[in-house]
């Protein structure tokens, strides 16, 4: 590989040849999703952050080694359930005011 090719590859964050550092966004998404269960008052925020990681970084390589995306799936399910509970709670409170 020429020097210019390496520089171009390094500039491209998704390039597996040049990248030497990977952030495990799937683990982060899972941590935020589970943290929401433990700290319920903040669960809406943590679920949103978790969902952001899932949507934003789904296609980004996670490791130089093969790594399955099951953490994204589990984090997504937990986040959806959490957001669902918030939606139900919100509608019942707003509905109570309206009635």
């Amino acid at each position, binding site marked *: 590989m020429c020097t210019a090719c390496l520089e171009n590859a390094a500039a491209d964050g998704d390039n*597996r040849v040049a990248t*030497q*550092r*990977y*952030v*495990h966004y799937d*683990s*982060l998404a899972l*941590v935020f999703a589970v943290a929401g269960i433990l700290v319920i008052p903040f669960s809406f925020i943590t679920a949103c952050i978790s969902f952001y990681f899932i949507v934003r970084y789904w296609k980004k390589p996670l*490791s*130089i*080694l*093969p790594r399955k995306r099951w953490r994204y799936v589990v984090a997504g399910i937990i986040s959806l359930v959490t957001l669902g509970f918030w939606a139900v709670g919100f509608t019942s409170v707003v509905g109570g005011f309206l009635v």
Partner: protein
Amino acid sequence: MEANYVRLPGRGKPLAISLLSSEAQRLFLSDDHLLVLRQNRAEESHKKFNYKDIQAVTVQSNSELTWILSFNALLLAFIIGVGIITINASGGTSPSGLIIWGFFIAIPLIFIAKNLIQGKTCSVRLHTAVQVLELTSLRRIGQARSSLEILRQRIEAAQGQWQSEEMTAESDEPVEVKASGSLPRGIKKETVKVLGVSNHRMAFVGVVLLGITNSINMLLSNGVKDAVDALFLLVVIGFLFTSVIRQHNSTLPDRVKSWSWVTLVGVGITYMMLMYVDSFVTAFNMDDPPDIFEIQSISLSGTTAWHIGVSGILGVTHLFLGALGLLHLRGYKVVEEGVAIGESSPGETDLS
């Protein structure tokens, strides 16, 4: 395209940072390179070393195992001591209490057994033309040997095998050495001392005697004996202190040097912590000052129970430290012109 990686056994980090960081290192073999992967919970980074670029892999034994075992042994002594104090203070214990105590005793025991089974510790370094990297995932000598054997085969496949005839021919070639008369800048001349074991032996025997006298304190407590013990403690600490000062740059084995430091720190810490605790408990429970010449009888409640517990902890700890120190000294002899002069070594000799 993803390379096909084979994982080498081992996953680890240096002992010094193991409590502060979750980062661990793992090694993977590819067809043409070694992948060193550093991984924590949130991210990973890696370095690739082509087999052709690896110049050497060195394995050096270290004293990490001694530190791990010492820590677990002290923890074990502490848990046993706390248990004895609690049983004495409460005048007995229930089966459930014994089960909980046994559980806490089992934890350091399991760690000690695990570390003894895993064997001696070492540090492995990978050398290339431009850098030296410590392979922290290989921390046991046995594990390092088996892993490096696999790595050696890959390196030989890439670099070719060095024939023994070539090595002999290379080593037989005359090498021109130019003497400069002075050491390169930045390199200090080190003096290595040939050190006998007498000072260390006196120190460790003293620590064993401290353990015995503290064990006797469990049965009888006397003010005069306590004063003599305190003087004796000062003498022993003096011996330990001179031992650790003199052993620097000496021929003594590393395990003796390390254990001398562990013993000095261990004796100091146990005395400081436990005597303070003992003093506080005594002060809180004291109605009137006791006669220092009076031999106190054993009572399983109140102040005396604390005395028994504290003396027990000190006794067990010091016996352990001293006895293991004496064991470490076994087999070490100073040899001068083929004659073992051992313990009658004349202090220090300059080898520089």
